[in-house]
Structures are given as structure tokens and as C-alpha cells.
């Protein structure tokens, strides 16, 4: 079981309130991702749930019982830190066994659980090495191993992949997702990378300055962002925002259109502009288009085979059905 509820939780450091009253429910077995720009309070929120920081006011409930004043070790949560926080002087085996030794389990049970975790995470060959002798990805797995042997009610991940290189990151992303499928335990995952959020989450919580901007499944956030911030944050490359007369045509203050929802043509279209930079990724090509008279830059996604060069004049046509409309406060107009 691992149902976590935050009820009007706030956090202040001195006079500065970093988290204004906040309510959130995380269902049992859900993979929830906290995402937002750096400094938005997502790590603080995770540390509040873990108990590493005290909340200023409000309640935290885990499985229906109030956990606000319960020390971190007794909350039944396991955390994977950004720096992995492995104990450098202990072997991998001892690192993984540490929480079990602290819980005073008998040696046979400790061995059984450590071997189990090691085989799940492909660490069996490394059990007698020190963390210093492992690669970044292996250290990451040891940190996860140390978390799973405790059989916690929920896992907390604090930007666990940010120290890995791009290829490893994709691999570990899959491993964590598979682990979640297998264990079916609640997981809370903090990241600033919206790609990680979109690919892994059952539920995404978008935060800005300690305030929850929107909660929803990845596709809900992509299709119906509640406001301009979420619209700009979710999706890569970023959504294009257009103000002025063009927006007024759709009776909105601002309209947003994603790069993948604009068609490119050499000859005709609704808008026209000059290509400044074209990024060829092979599968796709991104054009950064200037001089459209709509916004500074319009980003457009086209097929990998389409090739325009710097200085070419091209024509753009947005898909009318997926234009997002926002009012003067940046809120979505349905």
C-alpha cells in the first residue's frame, strides 16, 4: 500500500514561503512525476514527503494515517538521491544490506533479499566491489537496490538520472519503468526533464514556484494544457505562442500551436517566413522561421526528408483543430 495525501501543506524557509498551501493525492501504485523548472520547489516537496524537511503547516498522510511528525525512517518510504549517496567505504552488498541491518533482520533474510535485489538489477557480479569501482549506471542500480530491499510503501526518486550520459539515461528510464511495472509500488519521481516525465509517468504534476499548475496524465497535459505555462513546458520543441491580430482571429489573447502541428510548403500556406536555422535530426527536421510577422521565431517540425536552407522563404499552415487558445491571464479557453 502506498497512498500519499498532502493536505494544505506549506513550507517556509525563514520569511520566504517556498510552497504555498498545496493539496495533492497520490494513489497506491501510481507513478507520479513532479516536473518543473529548477527552483520550482519540486525537490523540496519530495523532501517534505520523505520527512527530511519539516513541513511548516498542513498534514501529510500515508495510507490514511497522519505521518507529519513521523521520522523519515518510520514512514516506510525509500529514496534514491541525485548523487546516489552510496556509502563509499562499504561493498555493494553491504550498501544494499545497510537498511536491513539497521532494521535488525536476521542474516539469512538479509542475504535472501540482497541476492533477490541483485538479480533483479543485474548486480550479482558486482556485489563485492566498492561503489568507486562502478560506472554511473551501476551506481544508480545499487542505489535503487538499496531502496527496493526495504520493500517500501513508496519510492522517492530525486532527479536520479541527471548525472548520467544521454544513452544511459534512456536505458535507465526504461529500467525504472519496467521496475514499476513489476513491483507495482507507488513511485514519486522528481525531474526537470519533461521527456522523462512524459515517457515514465502515470500522472504528471507540473509545478511552478511551489504552485501546482496542473495534474494529469501525460497526454492530458499535452492535449489540454490548463494554462500557458504548462503548454510551454510540456512538449519538445516548445509550443509557439502568437499574440495580436492573428490570435484575435481565434477570439483569444494568445494562441499556441505546437511545432508538429504546422505543415510546411514551398509554395503556399497561411503564413510565410524565412528559415534561419534548420536542425536535421534524421527522422525529423526542425526549422526556426523568422520574419513571419507573428512572433520572433516560429518553430516547425517537418519530415526528415524535407530540406530547406538558411534564407529560404517557406509557407506554413497550422492545423486548425489543435490550436490552443489562452486568455489575457494565460488560462485556457475551451
Amino acid at each position, binding site marked *: 500500500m502506498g497512498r500519499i495525501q498532502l493536505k494544505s501543506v506549506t513550507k517556509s524557509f525563514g520569511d520566504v514561503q517556498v510552497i504555498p498551501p498545496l493539496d495533492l493525492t497520490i494513489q497506491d501504485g501510481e507513478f507520479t512525476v513532479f516536473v518543473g523548472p529548477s527552483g520550482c520547489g519540486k525537490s523540496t516537496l519530495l523532501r517534505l514527503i520523505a520527512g527530511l524537511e519539516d513541513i511548516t503547516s498542513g498534514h501529510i498522510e500515508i495510507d490514511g494515517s497522519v505521518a507529519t511528525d513521523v*521520522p*523519515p*525512517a518510520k514512514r516506510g518510504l525509500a529514496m534514491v538521491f*541525485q548523487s546516489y549517496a552510496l*556509502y563509499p567505504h562499504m561493498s555493494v552488498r553491504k550498501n544494499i544490506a*545497510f*537498511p536491513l541491518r539497521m*532494521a535488525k533482520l536476521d542474516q539469512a533474510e538479509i542475504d535472501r533479499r540482497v541476492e533477490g535485489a541483485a538479480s533483479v538489477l543485474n548486480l550479482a557480479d558486482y556485489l563485492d566491489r566498492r561503489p568507486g569501482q562502478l560506472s554511473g549506471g551501476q551506481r544508480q542500480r545499487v542505489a535503487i537496490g538499496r531502496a527496493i530491499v*526495504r520493500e517500501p510503501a513508496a519510492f522517492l526518486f530525486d532527479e536520479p538520472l541527471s548525472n548520467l550520459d544521454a544513452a544511459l539515461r534512456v536505458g535507465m528510464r526504461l529500467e525504472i519503468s519496467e521496475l514499476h511495472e513489476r513491483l507495482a509500488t507507488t513511485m514519486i519521481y522528481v525531474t526537470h526533464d519533461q521527456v522523462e516525465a512524459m515517457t515514465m509517468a502515470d500522472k504528471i504534476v507540473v509545478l511552478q514556484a511551489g504552485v501546482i499548475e496542473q495534474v494529469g496524465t501525460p497526454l492530458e497535459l499535452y492535449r489540454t494544457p490548463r494554462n500557458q505555462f504548462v503548454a510551454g513546458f510540456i512538449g519538445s520543441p516548445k509550443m509557439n505562442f502568437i499574440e495580436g491580430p492573428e490570435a484575435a482571429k481565434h477570439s483569444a489573447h494568445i494562441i499556441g500551436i505546437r511545432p508538429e502541428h504546422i505543415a510546411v510548403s514551398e509554395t503556399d500556406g497561411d503564413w510565410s517566413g524565412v528559415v534561419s536555422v534548420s536542425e536535421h535530426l534524421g527522422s525529423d527536421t526542425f526549422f526556426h522561421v523568422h520574419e513571419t510577422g507573428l512572433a520572433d521565431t516560429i518553430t516547425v517540425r517537418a519530415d526528415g526528408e524535407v530540406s530547406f536552407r538558411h534564407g529560404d522563404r517557406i509557407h506554413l499552415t497550422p492545423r486548425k483543430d489543435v490550436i490552443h487558445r489562452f486568455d489575457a491571464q494565460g488560462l485556457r479557453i475551451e
Partner: protein
Amino acid sequence: MATQHSRSVARLMMAPAVVLLLGWMLVPLTMTLYFSFKKYLPLRGGDLGWVGFDNYVRFVSSSSFWPAVQATLVIVGGVLVITVVLGILLAMLLDQPMWGQGVVRILVIAPFFVMPTVSALVWKNMFMDPVNGLLAHLWRFFGAEPISWLSEASMTSIIMIVSWQWLPFATLILLTAIQSLDSEQLEAAEMDGAPPLKRFYHIILPHLGRAITIVILIQTIFLLSIFAEIFVTTGGAFGTRTLTYLIFQRVLESQNVGLGSAGGVYAIILANIVAIFLMRIVGKNLDA
């Protein structure tokens, strides 16, 4: 960048310093070795010729040799235990965020800047004096008979004085080591269910391991040669004659330069054994 030419110029420029340092070290060392094989009594006939290993045998077989070795070990060991244990506690205390942290840290380091002779005199006259010392007043305040520290508890007194001098050094090294500990490791241990004492034992202490070895080895080298603290307090009496002090007495009080030099060579060998261990550990630290 470094061409043949610039390298030879560099060697030429370094030569004076190297020659000076080498001479500085080699001349006294050679003279000590030279005298240790001679019977040399400046006030009783001067140079009386070569005697082979006679001085070495006499120094070791003297009745004051083993007591001196024991006194040395007790002082070095006692000071090491006190400075390391208190050093760890003080370092953890100073690592806590507190008001006036900068000033407190400077105050803690201050004893290290006091000359050994001065600090020994201050302790002797202002703290340990059986009539007017602060400790005597304290004892009398509680109705106890003051202790004449330097004669009744001579060893304890000297260990106290030397520990007071070396505690700042240990604290400083251990504080920097504690500050380099990743706070996420402590938080991870907290989440793993380790209470504060176990966090200290399983996380902080192993992290300090290398720093503690370095403190022990550096201090050992310096503590083996403490002299001023003994000279101005007990003058080697009441069982406080260390190996260093014995050598001093052989050369200056008994005016037997040969015998003292032989003792000096023993001291050099002892210090070098410690130094080899120190360099290995420091070297390993620099590699890691």
C-alpha cells in the same frame, strides 16, 4: 613547452636552494653519525678516539633507556588518544551552523599559535601552581586539597599541556574532513533507519578514517620530539624523561657527545619509520 634548454636553465636556477637544503640536512646528520662512533667528552679530555658501536650499546643498556622509551610512548599515546577523540567531537560541534561561527573557529585554533615554551610556562605558573594556580583555587573552592600537579601527577600534567597545544591541529584537519562529507549520505542513512549514533559509527567515522590516520602520523612525528614542555616544567624529573630528553641530558648535562649522538641516531631511525608510513598514506590520498 619545456625544451631541453629551458629545462637545464630550470635546474640551474633550482640548484642553490637544493644545495642549501641538502647541506642544511646533511651536515648535522653526518656530524651526528661521526660523533656517535667516538668517545667525545668536551670537559673531560675531549676527543678520545674511535670506539666503534660502543656508544650504541651503552645507550641502550643504560638503566634510564627503557623508562625513557616507556615515558615517550605514554606521552605520545596519551596525547594522540585525547586529541583524536576530543578533535572528532569538537569538529562535529564546529560543523553545526551557529552564531559567531567564524570567531569561535579562530578561538579554537588559537592555542596552536602559542609557542610551546610559553604555553608550558603559562600552564605551570597560572594553572598548575599548587599555591596560586587556577586549578588549586578551584580545588580549594570545593574544599579539596590542591594537587601539586607537576610532581604528583607529572605525566598527566605534561599530557594535558601537550594535548592542549595539539588539539587545534587535530580539530582543524578533522573539521575539513567532516565538511567534505556529502550530506545526502547522512540523509540516505537516516532514511535507511540509522539512528544518530549508528550514523556516526557507520558513515561519519569511516569517512574520517584517512584524516585520523594523517593526524596520528603527523602528530607522532612531532610528539616524539617534544622538549620545551618538559624542560620548563619538570626538567625530566618525576618519570617524565623521554627519549629526546635523555639525549639532551647525555649531551649537555653529562657532557657525553658520543653517547648522545648514538641516541640521536636511534631517534632518527624511529622518526623515519613513522615518516615512511605517513608518506605512503598521504601519497595514496593524493592518488585517490
